[in-house]
């Protein structure tokens, strides 16, 4: 089952080659600059982004914009998932009033997150990645167990992803925005886990309760290994530029 993400009109890709402020690693930038001292314009021209430098993969890019596109990719996945949940037979036939209220809110929040990131990346003078195409195992949306298990996987993954990527953000305002979203994702994750199993909001698979009780954050490479199983060929993510 393959599904094109429901989204507003896509931004024109004409500005793909527009120079970015932070696309390559600082160290390599300074090396560049050292070799071409005085030729600042040339250096800046070399700092162009390339969303598709790996065949068949969607490269989120580097620097702060790379983190924003990484978040945008994960929010696309979540928004698409809840869009489909609300059309599936579990939601339309068997979900309780409480479950519907929760799933409606999660759908609203994730669509807002997705389109916020698209707007924010554009406002930063950068280019958002394309609309991703998702794939789900057959029957994902027809049973309570499969909907909630998938929701749990996505919400926990989102929390671990934001926590793991915070260290790569250099602009305080962007870190603050990421913090505003990740706590909402954690609130989602907790209630979804409770719907799966009452009282499982800080399960030992995601919070180190036997040790420091810290959330177990995940590196981008670990996150996309999971995310890519829900993305079609041509929409799979590359995060090699982060970190």
């Amino acid at each position: 089952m393959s599904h094109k993400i429901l989204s507003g009109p896509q931004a024109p890709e004409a500005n793909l080659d527009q120079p970015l402020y932070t696309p390559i690693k600082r160290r390599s930038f300074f090396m560049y600059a050292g070799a071409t001292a005085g030729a600042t314009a040339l250096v800046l021209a070399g700092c162009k982004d390339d969303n598709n430098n790996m065949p068949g993969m969607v490269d989120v890019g580097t620097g702060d914009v790379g983190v924003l596109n990484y978040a945008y990719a994960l929010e696309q996945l979540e928004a698409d998932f809840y869009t489909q949940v609300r059309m599936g037979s579990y939601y339309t036939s068997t979900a309780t009033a409480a479950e519907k209220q929760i799933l409606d809110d999660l759908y609203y929040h994730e669509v807002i997150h997705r389109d916020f990131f698209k707007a924010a990346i554009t406002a930063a003078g950068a280019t958002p990645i394309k609309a991703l195409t998702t794939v789900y195992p057959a029957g994902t949306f027809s049973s309570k167990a499969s909907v909630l298990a998938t929701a749990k996987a996505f919400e926990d993954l989102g929390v671990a992803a934001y926590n793991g990527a915070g260290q790569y953000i250099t602009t305080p305002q962007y870190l603050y925005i990421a913090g505003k979203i990740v706590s909402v994702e954690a609130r989602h994750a907790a209630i979804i886990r409770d719907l799966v199993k009452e009282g499982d909001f800080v399960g030992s698979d995601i919070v180190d309760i036997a040790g420091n009780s810290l959330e177990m954050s995940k590196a981008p490479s670990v996150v996309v290994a999971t995310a890519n199983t829900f993305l079609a060929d041509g929409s799979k993510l590359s995060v090699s530029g982060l970190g």
Partner: protein
Amino acid sequence: MNFFDILSEIEKVDPEVYGRLDSRRSIFKHMSGVGQKLTAAALPLFVGAVFNKAYAQTPGSLAVNDVLNFALRLEYLEMYFYQQRTALTGLSSVNANALSLIATDEANHVKFLRATLGAAAIADPGAAAFDFTGGKGAAGGPFGDYRTNPATYLALAQSFEDTGVRAYKGAAPISSVMANKTVLTAALNIHSVEARHASHIRSMRRAGANSATPSQGVAVAPYSAAPKSWVSGTDGGGAVPGTTNAIYGAGNSSGAGTAANVTYLAEDNTLQGGVTLSGTTIPAASSFPATAFSEAFDEGLDVKTVATIANLFVVTGNNLFSVYL
């Protein structure tokens, strides 16, 4: 003398030097501005300007240990609060277990922060530093029956968890925290655990303290008594309107305990990254309820505002939080 050799040399003793260079954007501005005009005579001035900015202390900003000790004070408040749960009556067993889990997490956070701070950690304030009735050590606080009445207890728990989420969120972008990636990541990994707690406490309140299925409660506007698992608007003033309003209100956006260029707005804020989020600005959300746009984002608080809230639960004469006021 080559500027980039200087940076390389500094990096050997200070691996964070590139991170200290404020933002790469400003370096680009410097560089594109000077360009080929950068003569040997001008270079020292240029370098001086860059490093003054990189190593200057922002006036009033908190050092990383100050932020960690502030977090430790809040974790002590939570730890001692959850230790008071044992006399509650009328909790379902699943809810009693949930409070035990949270109590373990908060005690673990105290231990973790103490270990991270080492000798710089504040002294344990002890349970006697706190008065969770809100009476400042005198009888008759607004939460007088919190030890036995689960409704009061959970109202306090929600208030503390939501405050904690806002505190960690607001402190993460403080420059000293961002410069220490280990501390930043640990703070984020506590922040999300506090948000999970907040979500669950809210679910317990929604379904009732004696419910065996706390996930199945239905939220009722204005979300004061039967809240959603997330903050909707300002939740009608929070769990005890008139007393808990500040927990959902705006903070201070300048002075000590704030992050540069961050504005601490109330929980009903819909202005994110310069865009006012609405069904107009997000066409895909044109049919969404207006509350969704503020629910989708939690808001942070500065240190001083958090200290003001926390200080309501400290006995008169104890300066655990008043040192920040």
